[in-house]
């Protein structure tokens, strides 16, 4: 059963009030399932899901990406760095 480490930034960090979460997921869980689970456990995250992208081990991954035990998942809302 994969246990994953989830990192929150920017607006998500403010809303959830934590920088990190740990989620226990069933075997065979994908990023898509993690997103669903997040929305259920943290309803404040729900409105962000439509535009949220995830990164595993510092690379952007699609919804079908399979999660392994110990994965490091970052929740990336639309980015706004750089210059105006």
């Amino acid at each position: 059963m994969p246990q994953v480490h989830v990192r929150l930034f920017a607006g998500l960090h403010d809303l959830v009030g934590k920088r990190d979460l740990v989620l226990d997921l069933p075997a065979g869980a994908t990023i898509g399932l993690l997103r669903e689970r997040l929305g259920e456990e943290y309803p404040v995250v729900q409105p962000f899901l439509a535009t949220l992208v995830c990164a595993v081990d510092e690379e952007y991954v699609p919804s079908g990406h399979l999660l392994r035990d110990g994965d490091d998942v970052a929740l990336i809302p639309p980015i706004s760095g750089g210059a105006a």
Partner: protein
Amino acid sequence: MFAITREPLDPMPLVESVRRDECGAVVLFYGVVRNENRGRSVRYLEYDAYEPMALKKLRAVADEVRAKFPVTGVGVLHRIGRLEVGETSLLVAVSAGHRREAFEACHYAVDRIKETVPIWKKEVWEDGSEWIEGHVPEVPGAG
């Protein structure tokens, strides 16, 4: 030279890091905190970043630039944390044999940084604040 830092940005070491004897042009871009956005007066900005990934993505943008343009050097510094109006949030330096490639490559680098690097900006106004939602990064293999 690539860095994500909370310290004020110093342009000269960055320029020196990209300058080569064979280059005739160095373009240096400053991204600066403006006092208004979309009609609202901005007091200051707060930047957040996924630091190790942001650094990795800055280097990836530089690799893209080198593959696309005949440049001799690329360097990027991005400041995070609280920035006051007039302070510099981003420095991008590009060197090339001639000015045209240097200008074009620098322009491209600044655009790609906005599209791919996991950094977020919060605008703080007199009467509130908001995390600005910019680009949804492209996900490889997502169709």
